[in-house]
């Protein structure tokens, strides 16, 4: 690439938080403009579409609470992905981990016979363990056998989908559901409380907010957080300083898979009150949360902000489905575009263009 002589491209020293924020913000705006062009080409006014999305997601009490409802799983999963991505473990399998968490919670809710007051805590614990177990398999395969994590985590998504399908069509099909492919309704003691008449199941939201703080401290201040960073950034240094790659990878995936499992508990116990079709339990939260974590620069606290932003986008998908008759799949177009512009803009964080000739080194 040749530039006019009075412009120089030079390496930027570690970019400040404001530079990162500014560039990320500009990237999102650019992605929204690109999506606007797509709207226009599709024959929908982009101004009308964005107006509808903003009004529908933020402009009313119902809209805002529905946005938060969508934000909850993104928040909980996003924190875990931020941790996994720090260890450079590509957990693309959060959707499957979420489903296995939902399966574990449903099994406990329907069949365990645990006394009422302990039922919800047991479901959260079971969901965490289920999601963690689903996530630890690829962690072991990568740490021990060097097997590509993207592929294994993704393949296990499809396996988890089929397990849920099998359960609701087969052994767990609810006798009281008149032939529909659902389990029976959860007993009342297994249903999460919500804020007033909204669908905000606050226990899950609270877990998410507390987890954001805890894991922020974990990655910034603890020995394990340090080891996770070293394994991610410099596996050779990790080996020579005696850090166990297997231990660190597995722990990062216990956290990541476990949190995704908790998101699954929230969806079945807080929203649906039964186990149902996988595409109803998760609208691709596990995939959207990848962008949530990436945009947050793998910082668990920043995930609170970015998960809200993507809550708006997912709610926006609901809104324009109704107001403009566009398929919910549009959310994936937004997601893909935002992700492209984000990673494309990262070169601006590493380099800057300056006016003036390069000084002799």
């Amino acid at each position, binding site marked *: 690439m040749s530039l006019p002589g009075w412009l120089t491209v030079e390496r930027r020293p570690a970019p400040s938080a404001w530079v990162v924020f500014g560039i990320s913000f500009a990237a999102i705006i650019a992605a929204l403009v690109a999506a606007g062009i*797509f709207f226009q080409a*599709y024959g929908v006014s982009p101004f009308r579409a964005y107006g509808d999305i903003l009004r529908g997601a933020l402009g009313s009490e119902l809209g805002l609470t529905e946005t938060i409802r969508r934000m909850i799983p993104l928040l909980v999963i996003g924190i875990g992905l931020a941790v996994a991505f720090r260890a450079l473990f*590509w957990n*693309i399998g959060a959707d499957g981990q979420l489903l296995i968490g939902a399966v574990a919670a449903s099994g406990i809710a329907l069949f365990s016979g645990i006394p009422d007051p302990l039922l919800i805590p047991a479901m959260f614990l079971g969901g965490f363990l289920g999601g963690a177990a689903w996530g630890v398999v690829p962690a072991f*395969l990568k740490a021990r*056998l*060097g*097997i*590509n994590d*993207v*592929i*294994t985590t*993704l*393949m*296990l998504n*499809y*396996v988890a989908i*089929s*397990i849920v*399908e*099998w359960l609701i*069509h*087969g052994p767990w099909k609810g006798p009281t559901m008149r032939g529909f492919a659902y389990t029976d309704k959860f007993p009342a003691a297994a249903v999460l409380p919500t804020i007033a008449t909204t669908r905000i199941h606050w226990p899950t939201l609270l877990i998410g907010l507390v987890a954001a703080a805890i894991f922020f401290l974990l990655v910034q201040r603890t020995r394990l957080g340090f080891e996770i960073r070293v394994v991610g950034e410099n596996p050779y240094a990790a080996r020579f300083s005696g850090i166990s790659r297997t231990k660190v990878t597995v722990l990062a995936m216990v956290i990541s898979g476990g949190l995704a499992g908790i998101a699954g508990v929230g969806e079945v116990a807080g929203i649906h009150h039964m186990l149902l079709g996988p595409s109803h339990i998760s609208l691709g939260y596990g*995939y959207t949360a*990848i962008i949530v974590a*990436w945009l947050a620069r793998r910082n668990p606290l920043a995930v609170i902000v970015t998960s809200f932003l993507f809550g708006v986008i997912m709610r926006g998908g609901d809104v324009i489905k109704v107001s403009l008759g*566009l*398929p919910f*799949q*549009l*959310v*994936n*177009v*937004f*997601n*893909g*575009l935002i*992700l*492209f512009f984000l*990673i*494309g803009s*990262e*070169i601006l964080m590493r380099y800057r263009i300056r006016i003036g000739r390069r000084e002799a080194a």
Partner: protein
Amino acid sequence: MTWESWIVATVSRTLAYGTPLLLATLGEIYAERSGVLNLGVEGMMVVGALSAFAVAYTTGNPWLGVLVSAAVGGAFSLIHAFASVTLRANQVVSGLALTMLGLGLSGVLGRRWEGWPLLTPVKEVSVPVLGKIPVLGPALFEGQNLLVYVGMALAVVLWFVLYKTRIGITIRSVGEDPATADSLGVNVSRVRYLCVLVGGILAGVAGGYLSVAYRPSWTDGMTAGMGWIVIALTIFAFWNPLLGMVGAYFFAMLFHLSFRLQAWLAPELLKTMPYVFAIVVLVLVSKGTLQKRMGAPSALTIPYSRGED
């Protein structure tokens, strides 16, 4: 069922299902050999499938559909090439973004084509003379479409190019040691762009095969994870086109045979077979010292920039 007809059915279903896997795997092998991991295969396949169907449905010409799917898949792959080669962005994330974009766009744009059968699919051909050989004839040379043979021929040609020609040496050197290739006058960026483009074209055609030949119709998300199986196949082919052919057909055969377990296993669980196989096979090929000798291209996923880092 006689054993002859059993073999004929197994082989012919294996070829039919293995062909899209083979085409896309060959493309991904080329992209990765040049040092670019493209996780957007699923996205490129699905836009290829939709565009092929839309064109074939509108014009009545399935081959025009296949041609367009090649162009659309190729164009789509250039987004990834731009992000990962020119902007040196993270290849894992860029590929995922491509898949999201492809699934999203095809989901939105494909809604009007949903559920219409294609009345003019790619026709089946029978090879004269060879089709008359007992058992093998009907298995290999009857009732398949041309793309099946195109896939086989491509595997051989692409193997030859990669290992026996100058172009192949150039591609492999760019994937192994771009700095040295650069110093010898190879344009690293151009080689990578072209290889990613080859990957996109083949993934597009693989998608087109699904919607105008294999199952002549369009349904949202009809690639159903095949693009990810392709990523796995590329690894267990050790980045070798001929082994890619063996892998794609072997995989397709396992997939087909698993349907014979229907009597014992719920259909929902049968659907997990390809994914479970993929993981199991990855575990098997990871064993031993094989990996050290026939591992991934050294510069895979590493962006190249001259004189830095």
